[in-house]
């Protein structure tokens, strides 16, 4: 199955998933639509839907074949009917939301040298002062494009072209939880200690992933984030990584 409804392309992914895709671009308007469609589908509590996963420009529904579809009707017809119904409901409901209607998380980051392992590196490569890197990194509001790689790993963008930097060719064996990094035009936060190749410019005292079932990931796709600089003393007083 591969068909188009409005601006959406709908296709099956394997034998137990269906994807709603918009044009592949990293943009607030795309995320806003994904977020609204995600919320609509989840609110309907449809039997047999196991997971709804937004990422950049796609929303993927993982389903249980035996619960989601009937064995007596054609599979493609059922999937087409489901997608056209859900999208017509979506089009009727979806209100153009203003960018300011989305909450902004103000996230503290300590950009001091003990945490900013690669800031000098970016400064040299891009011929820009560390102070300017911090100023540029904190001056923009970022969209959360995707959560993945690790539980709670937050992909955001886009950073200013002047602080764009490629990943380390060889990943570090361990990057500390809370580390804030840049890869290309994206900025991200490591949720747990893990190997990683992003260029690290600071660390947030916030715990952005907590395995407690009521907490889990701090951010969701479509959320907005703006960083602000704190010093080591303030970092220590806010530190949730203890």
């Amino acid at each position, binding site marked *: *199955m591969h068909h188009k409804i409005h601006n959406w392309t709908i*296709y*099956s*992914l*394997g*034998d*137990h*998933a269906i*994807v709603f*895709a918009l044009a*592949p671009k*990293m943009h607030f308007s795309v995320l806003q639509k994904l977020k609204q469609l*995600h919320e609509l589908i989840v609110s309907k509590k449809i039997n047999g839907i*196991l*997971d*709804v*996963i*937004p*990422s*950049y*420009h*796609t929303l*993927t529904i*993982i389903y249980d*074949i*035996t619960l989601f*579809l009937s*064995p007596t009707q*054609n*599979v*493609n017809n059922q999937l087409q009917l489901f997608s056209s119904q859900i999208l017509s409901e979506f089009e009727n409901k979806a209100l153009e939301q203003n960018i300011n209607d989305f909450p902004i998380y103000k996230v503290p980051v300590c950009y001091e040298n003990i945490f900013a392992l690669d800031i000098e590196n970016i400064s040299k490569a891009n011929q820009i002062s560390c102070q300017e890197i911090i100023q540029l990194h904190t001056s923009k509001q970022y969209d959360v*494009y*995707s*959560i*993945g*790689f*690790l*539980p*709670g*790993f937050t*992909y955001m963008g886009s950073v200013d072209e002047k602080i764009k930097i490629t990943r380390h060719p060889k990943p570090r064996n361990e990057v500390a939880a809370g580390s804030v990094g840049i890869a290309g035009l994206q900025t991200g936060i490591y*949720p747990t200690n893990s190997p990683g190749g992003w260029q690290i410019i600071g660390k947030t005292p916030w715990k952005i992933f907590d*395995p407690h*079932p009521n907490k*889990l*990931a701090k951010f*969701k*796709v479509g959320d907005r984030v703006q960083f602000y600089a704190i010093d080591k003393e303030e970092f220590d007083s806010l530190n949730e990584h203890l």
Partner: protein
Amino acid sequence: MSIKILHKGLADSIQDNGRYGFQHLGIQPNGCMDLLSASLANSILQNDIHTPVIELHFPSSQIQFLEGGIICITGANFVPVLNEKSIALYKPILVKKNDVLSMLQPLEGSIAYVGIKAVYDSPKWLNSHSFNAAKLKTEDVLPFSMYPSDPIIAMQTLNEKLNHALIEQVHNNIFSNTNPIRILPGPAWQDVNENALYELFNTPFTISAQRNRMGYPLTGPKVNLNIPNAYLSSAVTRGTLQLLPNGDLIVLMADHQTIGGYANLGQIILVDLPRFAQMKTGISFKFSVANLETAQTLFRTMYATF
């Protein structure tokens, strides 16, 4: 107190059907690599089908039972021995207090399951006992409890209910089936040139030794794209056939990440995944193209049996 790991294996773990509902937060599903064999073990033991099982790779853990009870081994034949005496697969097996289970040799398949006629008495995390990368360690004690109070009578009942036809059908489907592994085309299919597609379906592949629960890298022809191999990341599934920038292929398995940014060439259909998971390193196989309707019908037939 119930089952003790005397010596840890290479990559053994406790697994159930995995967790769904949290992939939007980047939380992986995990779960048994070969759900069919694991379900069969629980079915032979008349357990709830979601009861956690011990998943063994080779070299496998050596396991001691701290209480008597009933177990059932399914999946790969690693030549299981109980106190150095050979035991059968696909049958309920009586174990006594302090018996030791070892696996001698990877004769057939890649993953064995030990089902236990008991309840696993440990907290779940987000609806599942499967934990990403939580390998069993030497000295671990697995809290299985509520063994049958009279195992001899329980054995009789289980043996009477043994469905030989089903067992043979599942076993043959996984281990005696040399048909191609069927995939449904993925979104990057359109970006592969025709020669490469021809190669993909006409040249044999093998699973490389670097396999693990996250993914099975393949050895075979390189596949090239008509465009740069860089996509905005989107959700992947168990069975996703991912093309890496160097032209190599990898199939994502139970501990896969929730999203992927490399070319998605297709997904192995659910009914062929147990067979693929069990395939031994270095054995040649081919891919073929499935259709969605057939894939789902086959899935329904297979899972209706449990």
